[in-house]
């Protein structure tokens, strides 16, 4: 009882102190973000482009390619002053290839009032949990790597009933539908393969790709010698190789990443089955050749766009990437990430130009950016960048590469049309 | 002459529960000393502490002139202190012979070991008959014999026997007790822990009665055998 007043006093004191901390934190946020000057009023504002990809763990080599591909695009834009008065920054978050983590990153990016749009993610499964979050916030999301057709064309795309589920979602990578079909066409008509064994890794990308290849190849009149599925992380494929040997297939099509296909091709050739292995852009990587060694010779991979090495812009990108000593693998999706980020940067300029050279309030800016990105039209480092009514890239240019003399060599480039 | 084993104010605890609360006693070479008492009196704890399986929180144990407190169990064995644990604890999946050989684990004199194995078979002929059999197949009494034989294999200066008669039929118990008498007559020093006070007291030179962690009463075996209180409490007479 005699403590009563003192208790109250201390309570008030504590509450006061805590309130003080709240004020402190609020002003800190402002100060931190305003490092380079106060936003909105002055000549120079800072905008952040978010990146979501697996930056640690198993897929991180590819994921870091996304991050630093975007980073180089942002550096280029800043040094060339592509958007006068705006300095771009990258905020890269690690989704660890997990959907729930990707979603947390999406909400974090949406909450950050400096983030204008996002590049990513790598995995289609992660994209599913993020799309709606960005759609609700009217924020553009451009994936340089998702290939699952469902993401842009809805569930029934195969039957021709295409519905775009989210108008904020775009991608600079082409869908499995194109790649798988193009590969089947090449295998049947150019390579004259008639009896193909199809294996996939049971991941969204690989299984989708393999299914489309299989369907197209069969419809062309080819025979499917057999199918099987592997688990990511498997290392022993000897039983599978024996099965393939018995099927007398003349080619193996693999839907999946190079982590598994480099082992499969080695064990295939060692098992005396000298047939080529063909895959998608998931194994179009120098790592594949390096690790598989001689066994890779003659293997094939499809990839989107024209060969990166033929475009001068891409050469600069590769040079910049190497010069900065960035970690990660730029080969597979780095170029698309660069183009995705550039599409966002160009759209920011469009939005600002339409608004008298000033950026509208963030909510408004994000919404307007969706329309601007939809109208994107420029030549990127991995080909022409523009989006169709589903948010898919219109760049249907595909190339088949074959391993010759220890390097991927383009053997056919073309446009796939159904 | 100092005693072979000297225990001074030994205290042992499990966590905060003190199981042995400062006991002192000694064993002279050639003697049979017994600790008797009810379940939970701290007898087994005392033996486990002497052989190093438990660490005391206080007190001092001297064996053959050496302080035991910082010595791990396997080194204590090498000093000549053998412990045949409560519940026998033979190695069930090894043969009888392998069990006996393990008893001589620290010895390097193969001829002597062979001789002692034979001596064990003489002491317990049943073991000799079944030497290649897995020890787990023996009956309780036979396992007890094996445990004793195994403890003797290290040529101990002091043999500690923990409840050798536990769970045995009266005939088996008789056999075990007569073996102890025989060992005593051969000059083996024995520290015997028993619940069967009658048997233990009748063959002991010295005896100590333990109750909840302390020594309540000490004397010669015969003295205690005739002590009024002991008779009432431990020998079931009123």
């Amino acid at each position, binding site marked *: 009882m005699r403590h009563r007043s003192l208790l109250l006093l201390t309570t008030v004191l504590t509450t006061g*102190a805590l309130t003080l901390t709240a004020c402190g934190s609020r002003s800190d946020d402002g100060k931190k973000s305003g490092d380079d000057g106060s936003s909105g009023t002055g000549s120079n504002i800072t905008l952040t482009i978010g990146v979501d990809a697996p930056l640690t*763990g198993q897929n991180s080599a590819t994921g870091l390619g996304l991050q630093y591909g975007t980073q180089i695009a942002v550096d280029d834009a800043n040094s060339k002053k592509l958007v006068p008065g705006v300095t771009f920054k990258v905020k890269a978050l690690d989704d660890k290839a997990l959907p729930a983590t990707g979603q947390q990153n999406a909400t974090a990016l949406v909450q950050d009032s400096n983030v204008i749009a996002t590049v990513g993610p790598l995995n289609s499964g992660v994209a599913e949990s993020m799309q709606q979050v960005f759609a609700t916030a009217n924020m553009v999301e451009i994936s340089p790597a998702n290939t699952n057709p469902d993401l842009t064309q809805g569930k029934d795309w195969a039957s021709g009933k295409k519905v775009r589920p989210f108008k904020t979602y775009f991608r600079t990578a082409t869908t499995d539908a194109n790649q798988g079909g193009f590969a089947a066409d090449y295998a049947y008509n150019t390579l004259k393969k008639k009896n193909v064994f199809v294996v996939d890794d049971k991941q*969204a990308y690989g*299984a989708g790709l393999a299914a489309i290849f299989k369907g197209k190849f069969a419809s062309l009149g080819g025979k499917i010698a057999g199918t099987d599925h592997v688990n990511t992380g498997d290392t022993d494929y000897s039983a599978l190789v024996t099965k393939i040997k018995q099927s007398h297939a003349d080619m193996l099509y693999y839907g999946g990443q190079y982590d598994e296909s480099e082992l499969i091709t080695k064990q295939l050739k060692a098992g005396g089955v000298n047939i080529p292995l063909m895959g998608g852009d998931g194994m179009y990587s120098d790592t594949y050749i390096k690790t598989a060694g001689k066994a890779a010779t003659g293997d094939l991979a499809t990839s989107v766009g024209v060969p990166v090495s033929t475009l001068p812009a891409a050469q600069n990108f590769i040079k910049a990437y190497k010069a900065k000593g960035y970690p990660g693998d730029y080969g597979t999706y780095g170029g698309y990430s660069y183009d995705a980020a550039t599409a966002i940067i160009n759209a920011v300029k469009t939005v600002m130009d339409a608004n008298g050279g000033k950026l509208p309030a963030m909510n408004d800016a994000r919404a307007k950016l969706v329309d601007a990105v939809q109208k994107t039209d420029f030549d990127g480092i991995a080909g022409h960048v523009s989006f169709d009514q589903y948010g898919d890239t219109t760049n249907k240019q595909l190339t088949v590469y074959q391993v010759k003399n220890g390097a991927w060599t383009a053997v056919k480039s073309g446009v796939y049309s159904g | 002459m100092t005693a072979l084993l000297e225990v001074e104010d030994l205290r042992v*605890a499990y966590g905060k529960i003190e199981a042995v609360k400062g006991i002192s006693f000694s064993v002279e070479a050639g003697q049979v000393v017994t600790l008797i008492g009810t379940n939970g009196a701290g007898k087994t704890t005392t033996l486990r502490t002497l052989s190093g399986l438990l660490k005391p929180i206080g007190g001092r144990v001297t064996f053959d002139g050496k302080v035991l407190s910082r010595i791990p169990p396997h080194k204590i064995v090498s000093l000549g202190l053998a412990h045949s644990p409560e519940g026998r604890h033979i190695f069930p999946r090894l043969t009888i012979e392998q069990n006996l050989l393990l008893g001589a684990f620290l010895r390097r004199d193969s001829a002597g070991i062979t001789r002692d194995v034979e001596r064990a078979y003489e002491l317990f002929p049943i073991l000799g008959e079944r030497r290649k059999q897995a020890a787990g197949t023996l009956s309780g009494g036979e396992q007890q014999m094996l445990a004793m034989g195994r403890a003797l294999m290290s040529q101990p200066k002091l043999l500690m026997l923990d409840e050798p008669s536990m769970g045995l039929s009266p005939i088996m118990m008789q056999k075990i007790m007569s073996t102890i008498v025989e060992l005593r007559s051969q000059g083996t020093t024995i520290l015997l822990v028993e619940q069967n006070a009658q048997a233990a007291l009748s063959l002991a030179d010295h005896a100590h009665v333990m109750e909840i962690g302390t020594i309540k009463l000490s004397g010669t075996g015969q003295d205690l055998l005739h002590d009024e209180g002991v008779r009432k409490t431990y020998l079931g007479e009123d």
Partner: protein
Amino acid sequence: MTDIPLTEPLQPTPLGTTHPDAARSDSFVTLPPGVARIATLVGVAGTIVSTFMSWTYTSAFPGDLTVNGYPGGLQVLTLIGAILTGLVALGAFGVKGLTWLVPNRSPNAVLLLAAGTFATTWYAVIAIAQELGGLANLNPGGFVAAVASLVLLVGTLGLPIDRQPLDPSGAEYYELGRLSENGPARGTYRWLRQARLNHGELPVPDPARAPAWVQYLTIVVVAAAGVKVLTYGLATGYTELFIGYLILVVFTLWAFIAAGLTRQFSKITADHRPFAALMGVVAAVAYPFVQNNEHWANLGVNILIFGTVALGLNIVVGLTGLLDLGYVAFLGVGAYAAALVSGSQYSIWSGVEFPFWAAALTGMAASLVFGVLIGAPTLRLRGDYLAIVTLGFGEIFRIAVNNLDGVSGPKVTNGPNGISQIPDLSVFGYNLGDPHQFGSITLGRFANYYLLMLVITVIVVLVFTRASDSRIGRSWIAIREDETAATAMGINGFRVKLIAFALGASLAGLAGTVSAHVTYSVVPNPYQFSGAAPPNSAFLLAAVVLGGMGTVSGPVLGAALLYIVPEKLGFLQRYELFAFGVTLILIMRFRPEGIIPNRRRKLEFHQDEALLPAQQALGDGTAALGKAGA
């Protein structure tokens, strides 16, 4: 060991039964008592003053510590630390009216707070010097802060600190192994042992004697402060501030323990359990209103989901002692079941849309069925076999849902693409997907789900506590402690274990139903044994063990840490998982009972400390194994 009743609850035995020497008060630095007190107060004052000065001239260091006149960033933390230290010091010195802050009058609390203030301040100063490149970047304020906090620390070191009794001069340190023969090692170890603080058993006044309204008010204030401290930590905008915050919070909590405040508080909560629980819930409900940020609400939902699953696992592991290494599969079963009946167009029953209560029951029922299916054949086996079978089941689940897409298996789960575009839940006509206005505060989608999940968590906590206090709960504990003895007492071990397994599974399934809706999609790959982020079976076990087995708050706290720490310590990046692994090892080594120990458990873990474990441990280990196993 057989003759010692280890499981008997221990009475707080008076000191001196095991240790001959009584506890002591002894300062670390020899100072005249008056000088120590004055140094302490001077240090407090100096530190407070320093926070109103500029610490560095450039705003390049986050938080802008250049301003004279009012504190910012890390300075605020130093200020709070200093004020608290000052108040507690005055309380410990017996200044009337503040003594309630230090009920046991121990200066240990002052020392710990001073150490926290010192650590935070010096961390800030060193961070400035390091990030900006050199001490030259410090303004006078920074030096004042460093010196004043050092004075403060030294002053408190001179106070008569309550410490562990001196070891007897001939004490043996068996735990050092071979080093125990080594003089310097022994000396150091001895010094460290004797340096340990000892405030756990100092008497404190019984708070029950205070008027009831004070007790209620205390609970309210603590709950409010808890929310405030938590939200402040979450809102820290940059890593340096978060680390400073973490240092200060840890030391402050430790100081409150040292002061005896936590003991009093736990007495109060024990006396007013329903009210305390209510306030806990109110605080949790307040969270999305106070921290009105969709990202943190999203994190909050995930923490609650994960924490709820961990609570379910706690029944299996913590109470019943069954080792389940594939527990995340039950979360997956619930999530998939809910997704299938959610009305998603990707579900094989795309027309079917259950209301939430029915979907939740479906998820629970599905998990329950799987729990029984796994448990019935395996719970009769020895404990270690259960571990491998559950691990196998977890793998089977993930591979199976990955394959059941009509191509490599029957069409059920849509394979690796999973079931996506799961519609938002609607509860009482209230669509959780839409933001809702509450006065001036808008609750977004994740805040809605947070509140829904909170209701479920509360239900699960109730189920957990009711179950553990009931007959069946006592049977679980009996089984955990000694299955043979429990069976001998007439407990049907198999049935009791199966109930634990099934109950734990259905709670996880319930959480799964919400998680399916929160993430819009269910895909197979999160349901693995170990991964880089929660949820996975290894992280679930870690949450239970880190937090404290057998308790309610432990797993929830563990879950929160597993989400918040990686979120906040982003700078660790690729070292994060390595650090996590090392942390697990260290925690198991030094605090195996978890952060919030169950009283009984704690005894079990530390019982052999007094026994000096080095040699004895082996035999004890197998005994413990047998206990937990079977």
